[in-house]
């Protein structure tokens, strides 16, 4: 019998985060003896993503896991996949619940937003002005996280958000924006780099402006990019999860379901290749990798590989 063909379509290819997921997926494919297809658009473009998925359907793969750029937009094509008998999953970002069979979630969205806010508050000593530097103004999950961050902000009455700026997926632009912000808001105490390019960008800008120690940065990014700033103290801590594990889990779960198994509600699974114990939540048809992970000087050296 032929091997299962399991495809994963990231939001875009060529960034460290999804590379790490690819790596995990590949590892799982080797361990579980399935074929792993990794293909996605070169920019975070949902229309292109749909086209790619449609062509995967034409190719007749067994399972498609996708990190949608726009959950609603991806629904029709996922529906089509399901009608063709393909196992449909989402991973990293969810789609419409009724079309996908499973969502492999890195962490709950509200928890991510809350954690980032908490880390910032801690670093800023719970008071002062801060800014958010996000990437694309239209990135769905970044915006959701920002919304949860703002929800959490209510718990810190002495902190004040002065502005939200966007810097695309470009480190240089994040540096430029941050340098301007430092000038525009002399009382700035902290900043959230909302995505993997803006977090190192804002940290770099703080150091270039000689404001390390006065302004703290935090956000969501990968350890290999952030280590330098954690070591210099510009970044006290930042938030993420292990994307390699997430990639691994995605392929593992696909194989598990293709083999005809069912997940049980509330059960924590022992997955051989990863360090956490993922838990299944039946009402959301969701497999959660674990709580969001906070990286700081104490643990960052262990995670330099992504």
């Amino acid at each position, binding site marked *: 019998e032929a091997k299962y063909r399991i495809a994963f379509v990231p939001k875009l*290819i*060529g960034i460290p985060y999804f590379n790490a997921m690819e790596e995990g997926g590949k590892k799982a494919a080797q361990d579980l003896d399935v074929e792993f*297809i990794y*293909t*996605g*658009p*070169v*920019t975070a*473009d*949902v*229309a292109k993503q*749909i*086209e*790619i998925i*449609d*062509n995967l359907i*034409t*190719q*007749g793969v067994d399972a498609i896991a996708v990190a949608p750029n*726009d*959950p*609603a*937009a*991806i*629904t*029709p094509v996922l529906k089509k996949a399901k009608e063709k008998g393909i196992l449909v999953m989402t991973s990293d970002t969810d789609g419409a619940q009724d079309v996908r069979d499973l969502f492999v979630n890195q962490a709950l969205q509200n928890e991510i937003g809350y954690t980032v806010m908490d880390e910032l508050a801690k670093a800023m000593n719970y008071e002062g002005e801060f800014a958010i530097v996000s990437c*694309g*103004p*239209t990135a*769905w999950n970044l*915006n*959701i996280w*920002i*919304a949860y961050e*703002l929800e959490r902000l209510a718990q810190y009455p002495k902190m004040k958000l002065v502005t*939200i700026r966007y810097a695309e997926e470009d480190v240089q632009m994040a540096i430029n924006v941050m340098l301007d912000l430092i000038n525009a808001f002399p009382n700035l105490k902290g900043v959230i780099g909302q995505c993997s390019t803006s977090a190192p960008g804002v940290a770099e800008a703080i150091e270039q402006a000689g404001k390390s120690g006065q302004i703290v940065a935090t956000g969501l990014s990968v350890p290999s990019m952030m280590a330098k700033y954690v070591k210099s103290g510009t970044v006290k801590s930042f938030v993420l999860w292990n994307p390699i594990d997430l990639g691994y889990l995605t392929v593992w779960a696909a194989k598990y379901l293709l083999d005809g198994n069912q997940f049980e509600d509330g059960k924590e699974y022992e997955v051989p290749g990863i360090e956490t114990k993922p838990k299944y939540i039946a009402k959301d048809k969701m497999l959660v990798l674990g709580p969001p992970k906070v990286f700081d000087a104490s643990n960052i050296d262990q995670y330099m590989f992504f």
Partner: protein
Amino acid sequence: MKRVLDYIVENRVLFLLVLFVALFVVFAVSVPGFFTFYNLTNMTQYGVELGLLALAEMLVILSGGGGIDLSVGSMLTIVAMIIGVLIGRVGLNPSLSILLGLFAGAGMGYLNGVLVSYTGILPFIVTLASLYIYKSLALIIAVDPRFGPNPMPVSNFPESFYFVGQYRIAGIPFQVLCIFIPVILLLWLLLEKSIFGRYLYGVGSNEKAALFSGINVCRVRVTVYTLSGILSALSGWIITSRIASARPDIGTGYELQAITIAVLGGVSIKGGEGSIGGVVLGIAIITLLYNGMQLAGIHQIWQLGSLGVVLVGSVLLNQVLLARRKI
């Protein structure tokens, strides 16, 4: 035989046709799943949105005087957002919303056209500015207070709204059969048979001479920019219906691709030269390439590169053959 070859080389449309057939045969023979009724009809839907923009670009470039419309992508986006917000957030009747969206597109194109023809500002600058403006407006109207100050896509459409983008007639996507093909036919009539088309080519090839011949140069230009707005709006409507989501970033970067397809199709960037057949083949070739390479499992990264190679290579081949023949 030599005469036939000469003819093909000299005539860009024929050359593209040959290229198209060649690519088609290669894919049909070597890529499993390509040469099926399902795939051949299915893939056509992916050419529609960009195709409409390429046609818009063709009209504008034909009108000469540095004619170009960098704002097509932004107009697409803002129309998508207008339709989306009207239906999804305001709760307006879908047909009315679509109509309003199309009107907005026409209006924005008209504005471009007026600025271009009555002030003498180069189209490049006018449409660059409107690229920024329309894009920014799209973001602003996309802001959903429920998610803080962030622009969010709209996706709660009634089922009927998906008719254009997701339904099929005899296996052929609705938007191809009922919008794209009719638009092509109409534009063909307009360019090849109508007095407006004649005037357009005249304005594009020598604006001064057109003026001296009693052609109303400004009216012709305003018309093409308005048409460009309408075509972009159609495209915005279709894409929203197809992907079931109105996104404030959907048309980003489309302008360059649209211009490229028009130029690939033989439209001279200097204006006054080019035909609809060439542009349609340009669209067909690009659509075919994407589909074929993806089905062949070629990595996205290589796809990007090979697209560049095919683009430059095909035109280069044409030019080299042309030059060789002349000696």
